[in-house]
């Protein structure tokens, strides 16, 4: 098989944006490998609006947002292979893949961009007691059935987990005539965006039961009912609070897991918190020339941020190839650390020399914080002190530091992002 400069694993929003950016940065040898039969990834089934407010300054649906990038990929003449599964990425960046036309094949690459996205947490990972009847779906599977295949998964629905896909599906099922009885959330706060709770649940009178979980599923062939109980501060069900809901469908929206089997087997260093690769300011992983972006790196709530990060990953991959891998040299590596209520940061290391005008650090918080501050420290010096009225785990946060600030701090070792009460 022909060699390519840049091989991109995944043709969803991250892979598409990375490809377009790499091409615009001057690279003409780019290949996207996509396992589905079309480009666009999960956006194709996200038919609701609300995408693109940052990127295009207008409100688009998922398919519309995807098509803007797919059109660019086609116009720019970027190569892609559909129905193609990547099996392995080696340390020296040889990509092994297979499809029905070419069989198993290898592609030597100078740079690889990981853009595989994420997967839904399945029932098996939740330890819900009860039978295993038909009628239990992850919210994304149900979304595909309704929006792409045109099937209704059920008529009486209970949703466990308040992630954004579950909230969106609560409204979608209501539109299609289903009775959505409630959304139960184990934690005392929702994992979804506030605006989705209002627009998808409150608008249709669907109750959101915080600190509640499913403790039993009834039905041998098909779901017949579920029992929901309140949980205590240790997330243990409280006896006596059980309530039975008859239903034919249980949807799970209990979290997304970056899909990093390929990254792990390639030997990329991973973050135990995001389950994604550790990257530097250029979105480069611990293997020089292997970059990561999108939900495979950390799970996003806005596709706009995915596109923005993928854009940088694509640009840096093109620069890496143009410089023959010389990017890895020169400049000091500065650590980026999350402390206080900040759970993690992307990136985790920075080479100030390689930055553009500024450094964007994205992070999530560990709980709901009201009236707290996001503080940024360069070693011991606090350079930024911003009050946030509210921060919640469901909404990704960011700080932007001008490169000049970093450059003027002599002998910088550590950048710390801290969520503090003052």
């Amino acid at each position, binding site marked *: 098989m022909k060699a390519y400069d840049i091989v991109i694993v995944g043709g969803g929003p991250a892979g598409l944006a990375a490809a377009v950016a790499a091409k615009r940065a001057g690279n003409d040898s780019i290949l996207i490998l996509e396992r589905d039969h079309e480009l666009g990834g999960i956006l194709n089934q996200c038919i609701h*609006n609300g995408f693109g407010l940052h990127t295009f300054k207008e409100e688009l649906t998922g398919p519309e947002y995807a*098509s803007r990038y797919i059109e660019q990929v086609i116009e720019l003449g970027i190569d892609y292979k559909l129905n193609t599964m990547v099996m392995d990425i080696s340390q020296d960046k040889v990509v092994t893949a297979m499809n029905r036309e070419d069989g198993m094949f290898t592609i030597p690459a100078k740079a690889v961009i990981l853009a595989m996205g994420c997967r839904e947490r399945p029932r098996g990972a939740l330890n819900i007691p009860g039978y295993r009847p038909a009628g239990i779906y992850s919210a994304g599977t149900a979304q595909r059935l309704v929006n*792409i295949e045109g099937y209704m998964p059920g008529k009486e629905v209970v949703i466990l987990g308040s992630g954004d896909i579950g909230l969106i599906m609560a409204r979608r099922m209501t*539109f299609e005539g289903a009775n959505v009885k409630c959304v139960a959330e184990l934690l005392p706060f929702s994992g979804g965006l*506030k605006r989705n709770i*209002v627009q998808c649940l409150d*608008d249709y009178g669907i109750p959101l039961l915080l600190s509640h979980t499913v403790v039993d599923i009834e039905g041998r062939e098909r779901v017949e009912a579920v029992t929901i109980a309140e949980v205590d501060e240790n997330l243990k069900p409280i006896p006596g609070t059980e309530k039975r809901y008859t239903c034919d469908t249980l949807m799970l929206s209990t979290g997304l897991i970056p899909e990093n089997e390929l990254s792990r087997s390639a030997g990329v260093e991973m973050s135990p918190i995001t389950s994604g690769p550790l990257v530097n300011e250029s979105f480069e992983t611990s293997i020089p020339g292997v970059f990561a972006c999108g939900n495979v790196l950390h799970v996003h709530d806005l596709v706009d941020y995915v596109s923005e990060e993928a854009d940088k990953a694509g640009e840096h991959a093109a620069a890496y190839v143009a410089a023959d891998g010389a990017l890895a040299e020169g400049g000091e590596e500065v650590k980026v650390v999350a402390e206080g209520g900040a759970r993690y940061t992307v990136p985790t290391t920075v080479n100030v020399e390689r930055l553009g005008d500024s450094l964007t650090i994205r992070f999530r918080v560990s709980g709901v914080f009201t009236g707290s501050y996001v503080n940024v420290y360069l070693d011991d010096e606090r350079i930024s002190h911003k009050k946030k009225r*509210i921060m919640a785990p469901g909404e990704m946060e960011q700080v932007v530091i001008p490169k000049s600030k970093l450059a003027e701090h002599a002998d910088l070792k550590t950048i710390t992002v801290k969520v503090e009460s003052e």
Partner: protein
Amino acid sequence: MEKRELTCIGCPMGCLVTVEIDDNGEVVGVTGNTCKIGDTYGREEVTNPTRIVTSTVIIEGAEKTRLPVKTASSIPKSAIFDVMDVINHAHATAPVKIGDVVIADVCGTGVDVVATRAI
């Protein structure tokens, strides 16, 4: 005099906004908001709440079976389920481009239902 309690969707703060409406349906006061956005949201939400509706229609002459569609602009919230009923009875025929009108002036709202994907 009527009081309506809303959660503002203008930002992640999610202020609990109380809107006071007089007997003529006029907004006389918005409280509980911590900024201007909440005031605007509260007024619009009680006088003329609108939403964009997205769904799918059956498509013929293509490998795919469903065409995603949306209302080209916001429609009154009260019309959502009437619009859904019309959408559920509509058919489209391939080829379709993004923005093609699938249903013109849906339910007399003056708003078209348009395709959001090329098939």
